[in-house]
């Protein structure tokens, strides 16, 4: 997601897009969750200002919006990393040692689950079955799935995205 590299100008663009989303759903019954999904897609997370705009746009009290945002794990009040590492903690993966994978990643990245590295490059998350049980233990970086993981793979994966980032910054 391009969120991190955003300059002030494109903030306006995003705000305009948010208004479009709100207008699209204004007359749909019970559309709040769909609006939040699309807003999060846009901003990468749901800061209070965004929630306020949605509150005004949909005419739903801010408290209710905050209640919904904090109820569902998909919605985040904190920014996420450019590369979101989601370690599968589904049963099949757990039985095959994904707990160890998560621990090693915490150690390697020096962050806790739910947090973001200081350079905003990586954030670490535990998630549920990603449907790759045949390849357990598995993890996902953004939308890419990596399976049959060993500790060594973790270094390679982290390295791969560091390189990718360096290239995209050139």
């Amino acid at each position, binding site marked *: 997601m391009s969120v991190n590299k955003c300059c002030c100008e494109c903030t306006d663009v995003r705000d305009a897009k948010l208004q479009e989303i709100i207008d699209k759903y204004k007359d749909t019954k*019970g559309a709040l969750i769909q609006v939040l999904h699309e807003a999060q897609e846009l901003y990468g997370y749901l800061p209070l200002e965004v929630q306020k705009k949605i509150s005004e746009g949909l005419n739903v009290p801010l408290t209710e919006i905050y209640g919904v945002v904090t109820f569902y794990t*998909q919605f985040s009040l904190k920014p996420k990393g450019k590369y979101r590492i989601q370690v599968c903690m589904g049963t099949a993966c757990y039985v095959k040692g994904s707990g160890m994978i998560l621990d090693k990643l915490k150690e390697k990245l020096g962050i806790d689950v739910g947090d973001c590295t200081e350079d905003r490059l990586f954030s670490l998350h535990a998630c549920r079955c990603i449907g790759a049980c045949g390849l357990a233990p598995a993890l996902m970086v953004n939308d890419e799935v990596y399976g049959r993981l060993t500790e060594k793979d973790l270094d390679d994966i982290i390295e791969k995205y560091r390189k990718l980032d360096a290239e995209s910054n050139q």
Partner: protein
Amino acid sequence: MQIFRAHVLVCGGTGCTSSNSPKIAEEFEVQLKKNNLENEVKVVKTGCFGLCAEGPVIVVYPEGAMYTMVKVEDVKEIVEEHLLKGRLVKRLLAGNDEFDYNFFKKQMRVALRNCGRINPESIEEYIAFDGYQALAKVLTEMTPEQVIDTIKRSGLRGRGGAGFPTGLKWEFARKSQDDQKYVCCNADEGDPGAFMDRSILEGDPHSVLEAMAIAGYAIGANQGYIYIRAEYPIAVNRLRIAIDQAKEYGLLGKNIFGTGFDFDIEIRLGAGAFVCGEETALMTSIEGKRGEPRPRPPFPAVKGLWQKPTILNNVETYANIPVIILKGPEWFASIGTERSKGTKVFAVGGKINNTGLVEIPMGTTLREIVYDIGGGIPNGKKFKAAQTGGPSGGCIPASLIDTPIDYDSLAQVGSMMGSGGLIIMDEDTCMVDIAKFFLEFTVEESCGKCPPCRIGTKRMLEILERITGGKGEEGDIEKLEILAKNIKAAALCGLGQTAPNPVLSTLRYFRDEYIAHVRDKKCPAGVCKSMMHYVINADLCKSCGICARNCPVGAIKGERKVPYEIDQEKCIKCGACMEKCPFKAIFKNA
């Protein structure tokens, strides 16, 4: 329509996609062009074939040859040998050994009938395989009462977990009088180790749409909602495509088949809350609110979504409907056992050779699934238990491996059918740890509305953490049992009422393991870290020093010619030394 002499089916399910199947499909296009075969052979991306462990999987028709673990480099050979010269590429063929063969032999595909056979993004292919014929039959030849009667006589029970008779549910909703009713589909698939519903939606989305329209006609509803988890992007996308296509063909929307029947379907994305799989919470979530459950009664058939009569069925339940209409309820009722009709799809995972998706007639035994279909336990280990029903379910120990898989037999042994997660565990799995795993899950997912679930499960988890942490106290096991009983009796919804099940069922069959943790401070499986340590066998140690160099905390000391030793105080039990020792002189001691 263009006629092709051969079809290459490439699995586009999530498992195979992550093992590179999209690149393989691309390479086929390239290689086919190179050999001027692009007008003779068609590449189709399908849903899951089931054999995820052996992915990526492709099947070449008309022969039906299945190739597994295909690499991009292999594509050239398959095109040149098989498609050009008509010679099978034996080395990649599945079914070389008995295991792969058995994987399919004992299965019976009803709900998954089209998965891996058609292109899920093409409504024409679905129609070519009798798609939307059941809807046509229902709308033009049957009354709603006849539809309900057909479903009742088939004996179909809900595949989402509880196993409620589907026809009966529809009848209740039919009898509720209101100007507006709704049909909902539960595609939230909350069991944390399962992916049956996702595979159906990814492989055959139209079957669910068709069934929902049939349900709409039967109960008198014109609006449907599919509640699907946002973590399933491929499935969501295919559903969107399918809905658009169906509308374009006039199979959804106004005046379907010119009969005056209107039916429309909307997708609603979940946002990661297990409790939203529960029917009343799901409806609250569709309304755009915090997905908290509501007390029942009133039941959804009377007051559901937006307080209107509503039915909710699981994806797999729906996938069975069109076939029942077309082949008749007697046909369906002839499959399975006395009180569990038809088939059930399971996502088999954990310590088993053939992980993947299987569909079996009800009544198949666990042994057949583990050893015949699943190919047994890897590395010659012993089967210890199977877990079904996820965080609401329980385990079946090795001594009961001949239990037939049906609603009643599973309930009798203290487990449940569940939605289809089936996790196999071997001797290296600690059952207390597994119980803790599921409880951690429910504690995190408890919505907080009712105290027995919010506080009670947390207390249970604390006790389990104590036990697995080597600090278990006399009486802890009994405390767990009392808490479990009270939570089951007092919780508001199914989440809390079933949360203690994994603990109760492991206690029932593996009590001695709990006792070993509490009394002897030992974890027999060697999983609970606080209770095990690593030791170097002095006779086997060659004093090479590799272990000491690999120890991240410098806990290993030694010198040449003298066996090395681990300082247990410093050791963090990471296991790096054991992994690296070239002489296999380091052991885990429980």
